């Protein structure tokens, strides 16, 4: 069986329509994606890098694809109102894969460019041509599928020297009256010595339908730039997502990527970072709180292609019920890259007999003068700590909750945005208490009107 076939057939039937609705630069890449998919197969469970995850079965479901780009929602701004405590952001929405800006977006006007590909292709053709589809590896069939079907995306460009004071917030909303697959695509270019913080959160408005988000994000961090990308998933048990983030780091750049999964169905996150300049710094953080039948698989690859750069990874999982967690991380230090420091950590709490954790931390080092380490542990809450708290009159559930919160606290503390940090602590507390409902709030506390 080949789950990709239905989508390839769909593309072949509607190729003319898709291409007529897309900018040329997308169509150029599309041709090579089509070629790639001719022989590609989605990885099955047990294949290399997919020990616990079966993509074939995720894509096998008969999802609808909005080839005609019919608008489903009049204005997502109407259904989601964001009230951001202590934090003012420039807010954008994407409804499925169509982008809308809000009134707050104007705050960044003149500094940061945020616009759909359809506009960017006219406004910044040289940037679009130079970077679109260049980082993402077409050898990954999910990237090829995204490139094949994508018709629009969001282009974020911070010109050289611009420091965006306000974070950009991107609220992704799923809303459809049928099972649906969307191809989200982001291209983020941060110029020399520029700085930007981006928050993205995923929500599903109609929990009765199955959604599949197959997204590809490309981030280019030029010399001396600062990029923070926070990604929070708070969807529904029927929502699946395959997310591939590709980063190209130049000299002295500083990139932080933080992936947080609170509620989801199936998630596979791929992070692929190429560190191409000296003194570049990479921070990859991840936190997963999973229960029920949630499945979260994170796969990271950091390639140090230049000397004197450093990276730091920490992924934490708290698994309960039948949840399945997987983490695979690889650090590569290429030859002639001395003085690289790379650390990778993966800590996991298994809270139920049926919860499963798979972990595969890897190092591949070809230079001698480096400091690299990885650590991985799977365990439970410390019985003695629990006992200690109970002797002081704290109930077992409360004690467990406190310890679990403390366990994930250092990942949250890695967030470089105070207001968001506070908000996350609050959301995690609610998540552990079981009172976090689907639209109780995105990371910036969205409230349904």
């Amino acid at each position, binding site marked *: 069986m080949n789950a990709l076939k239905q989508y390839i057939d769909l593309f072949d039937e509607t190729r003319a329509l898709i291409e007529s609705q897309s900018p040329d630069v997308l169509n150029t890449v599309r041709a090579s994606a089509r070629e790639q998919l001719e022989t590609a197969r989605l990885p099955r469970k047990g294949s290399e890098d997919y020990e616990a995850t079966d993509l074939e079965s995720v894509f096998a479901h008969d999802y609808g694809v909005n080839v005609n780009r019919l608008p489903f929602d009049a204005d997502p701004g109407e259904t989601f109102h964001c009230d951001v405590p202590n934090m003012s952001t420039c807010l954008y929405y994407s409804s499925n894969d169509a982008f809308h800006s809000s009134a707050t977006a104007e705050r960044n006007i003149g500094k940061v460019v945020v616009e759909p590909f359809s506009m960017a292709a006219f406004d910044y053709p040289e940037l679009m041509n130079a970077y679109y589809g260049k980082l993402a590896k077409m050898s990954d069939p999910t990237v090829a599928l995204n490139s094949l079907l994508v018709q629009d995306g969001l282009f974020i460009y911070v010109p050289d020297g611009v420091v965006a004071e306000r974070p950009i917030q991107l609220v992704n909303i799923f809303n459809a009256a049928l099972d649906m697959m969307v191809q989200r695509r982001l291209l983020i270019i941060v110029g020399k010595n520029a700085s930007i913080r981006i928050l993205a959160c995923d929500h599903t408005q109609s929990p009765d339908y199955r959604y599949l988000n197959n997204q590809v994000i490309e981030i280019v961090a030029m010399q001396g730039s600062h990029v923070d990308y926070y990604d929070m998933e708070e969807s529904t048990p029927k929502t699946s997502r395959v997310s591939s983030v590709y980063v190209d780091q130049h000299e002295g750049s500083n990139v932080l990527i933080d992936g947080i999964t609170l509620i989801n169905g199936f998630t596979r996150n791929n992070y692929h970072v190429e560190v191409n300049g000296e003194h570049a710094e990479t921070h990859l953080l991840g936190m997963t709180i999973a229960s029920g039948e949630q499945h979260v698989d994170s796969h990271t690859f950091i390639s140090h292609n230049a000397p004197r750069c450093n990276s730091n990874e920490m992924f934490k999982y708290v698994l309960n019920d039948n949840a399945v967690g997987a983490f695979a991380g690889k650090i590569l230090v290429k030859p002639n890259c001395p003085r690289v420091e790379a650390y990778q950590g993966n800590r*996991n709490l298994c809270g139920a007999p049926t919860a*499963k954790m798979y*972990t595969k931390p890897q190092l591949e*080092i*070809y230079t*001698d*003068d480096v400091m690299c380490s*990885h650590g991985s*542990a799977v*365990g439970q809450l410390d019985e003695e700590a629990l006992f200690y708290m109970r002797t002081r009159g704290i109930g077992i559930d409360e004690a467990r909750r406190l310890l679990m919160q403390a366990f994930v606290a250092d990942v949250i503390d890695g967030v470089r945005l105070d207001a968001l940090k506070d908000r996350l602590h609050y959301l995690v507390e609610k998540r552990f208490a079981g009172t976090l409902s689907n639209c109780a709030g995105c990371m910036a506390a969205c409230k349904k009107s």
Partner: protein
Amino acid sequence: MKENEKPEKGNQIIEEAAQAEYKYGFVTDIDTEVIPKGLDEDVVRRISALKGEPDWLLEFRLKAYRHWLTLKAPTWGHVHVPEIDFQDISYYAAPRQKKPGEGPKEIDPELKKTFDKLGIPLEEQLRLSGMAVDAVMDSVSVKTTYRERLAELGVIFCSMSEAVKDYPDLVRKYLGKVVPYTDNFYAALNSAVFSDGSFVYIPKGVRCPMELSTYFRINAAQTGQFERTLIVADDDAYVSYLEGCTAPMRDENQLHAAIVEIIVEDRAEVKYSTVQNWYPGDKDGKGGIYNLVTKRGLCRGDHSKLSWTQVETGSAITWKYPSCVLKGDHSVGEFYSVALTNNWQEADTGTKMIHLGKNSTSTIVSKGISAGHSQNSYRGMVKIAPKATGCRNFTQCDSLLLSDTSGAHTFPVIEVGNDTSVVEHEATTSKINEDQIFYCNQRGIPTEDAVGLIVNGYAKEVMSKLPMEFAVEAQKLLSVSLEGAVG
């Protein structure tokens, strides 16, 4: 200044190291019976016939051979095994005995010289060393010492071919039970053409009074060595088994694809130590042994214990994972490894700990040292089955890089299927701390000696697990292989 000096010194020292001779590289001029190159069913039948095997074993070999034909050579390792022409290897080579049919009672003087050169105590004068030795040259076991004394206790220690004749029931009961011929490509090949090896059976309640040791030697050219070792420790038994290996220096690569199977019953303990020193090839990476081995132990009984200790310094390519299947409740698996690679050697080694029994525990300590242009990988798996509650694993794998052209890699896999088990994994990669070298220099210890000291200290945790007789040899090996490998 310092940085400028370094490469020059490094080169000089590496040159010296490369010139450090592989001292086991001699060839014994002995009449050897070699069957023609090539592999087909007739060759399998011929090997079986030469050894006078019963039908069931021939059947086993043929089944393995037919299965092997359906397999492809694996390529997933972090090693570059060139395509091996399996028709260009001779699958059986035996030092010709002067009195055929009588069994190896009187050992050929040439052979004895060989083993004397290797320092193997085959003869009585070396009885003081207190080790029982089985010596395997090419495809056959040439001499086993101390058999009578061991027999008094009921311990069986003999070559595999003798075991097939003398204890067919035992062999039949256990052979292929831990590593079935369907396990992997090289296991299937070995099962089809395996020649000799050691068979050890320790009866219930017996604590083997001496170390058992097998010395493997490849001598004939253009042959492969496919030995098979089977160790069974019955209830409450204990045995410590050592394995050593060397081969002559030759320009062509030779294949060594062995299988080791170990079965540990209730409360029994097996300690398996290896000092692997096959010819590693010359300084340009020419020649050397391809060491592609399947080693696995089954801790079948409750409270059983299996401990692997290995010092890997030889072979052009080492690709092996001595593993423990911890089936019994409260069973214990241990893996201690030092893998040193120099010049163009490649090693991809590690272990698998499969926890099936409740409260089973395992410890993995792996130390990799890479010098020259070598590649050294740790690959391991710790798997806790859902029903194996209360399990515990601790893994530590450290890599030390002695040159900027070598590589060190770790690929561990951890799968935990329940909420009462604890698994920890730690790995570090770095070069020798310059502060430590500086400290030694300050006290008048030259850099090279300082490196030796630091590396020995680094590997000490594993070395201390080796039996005394081997620890000395291993330490010497490590210092020879390391000599001047400061980059």
